[in-house]
């Protein structure tokens, strides 16, 4: 197995862990917060999800860096490095890392941070797969911001609905 294949497998694995981990974190949190309290078992489950997300983030960061090094050695040039889609993906990964830090320092509302994080994981995955995407960087980032906002409001709506049902 060559380095490129190994790094691509690692990168996909990291993405799977991140997307999966954040999806289940949201599902479990929505389910657990119905009774407006998180008991120790529920807290543990959420902690496991967060650990999985963090492992995914570490894997995609290192494997992504490795892939960039290989691209540099192949001299793939501005067409690849400066492509709007790839620059947008890198920006989204930076947002993910930044949100992880803000959440750790408790400098961001937890629900907002987790919604942006979930949206970012999906956005990074889509931007990685959608090779034919032919939009400008600013348009892609605009869609990403809108997507993040929609994710937040969607999750809030689902949580409010489930809490209402329990109270009825």
């Amino acid at each position, binding site marked *: 197995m060559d380095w490129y294949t190994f790094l691509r497998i690692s990168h996909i694995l990291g993405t799977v862990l991140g997307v999966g981990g954040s999806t289940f974190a949201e599902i479990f949190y929505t389910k657990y917060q119905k009774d407006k309290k998180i008991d120790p078992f529920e807290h543990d489950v959420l902690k496991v999800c967060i650990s999985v997300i963090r492992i995914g983030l570490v894997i995609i960061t290192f494997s992504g860096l490795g892939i960039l*090094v290989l691209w*540099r*050695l192949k*001299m*793939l*040039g*501005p*067409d690849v*490095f400066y492509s709007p889609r790839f620059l947008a993906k890198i920006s989204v990964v930076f947002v993910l890392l930044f949100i992880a*830090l803000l959440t750790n320092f408790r400098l961001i509302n937890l629900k907002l941070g987790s919604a942006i994080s979930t949206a970012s994981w999906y956005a990074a995955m889509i931007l990685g797969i959608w090779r034919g995407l032919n939009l400008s960087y600013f348009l892609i980032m605009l869609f990403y911001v809108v997507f993040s906002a929609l994710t937040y409001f969607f999750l809030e709506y689902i949580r409010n609905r489930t809490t209402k049902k329990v109270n009825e």
Partner: protein
Amino acid sequence: MSDTLIFYLVLHIILGSAGIIFLTAYLLSLSKKEPDSKSLKSSSFLAVLSFIGSWIFGGLYYTSYYGKVVKPIILKGQYSWVHTILMETKEHLFLFLPFLTIALFVITALGKKGLEKNENLKKSVLRFAFIIVGLGITAALAGYMISGAVTK
């Protein structure tokens, strides 16, 4: 590019990234209510070693290959500003990193009691460490843009 030069470039990137990661770990550790002085000392020390290593290997690559081969390629292309602005800035800002990280290590190693008891000193050191991380990330992003401007 020869295997030796690939080795220099890859080590420059890996060690530079490691330096940023160790400093971020330092920031996270220092921000806790009761920072662990052992973890602070080890992360700042590892950051020093990483940046010095990145400096040496980056320097070897830069002085033996970049100027003669890579720089002309970038200057000929449509992104010549990547060298004239980004690379020129990066190669000089990078020089700050080893010295600032050494200072951070010394402050951490010798100022343990102060960091534990004095909240203002802790905030000052946090700000200082944050700026060093910022410099490292700036250098890394510039490195990305420079790598991207190199074409066949």
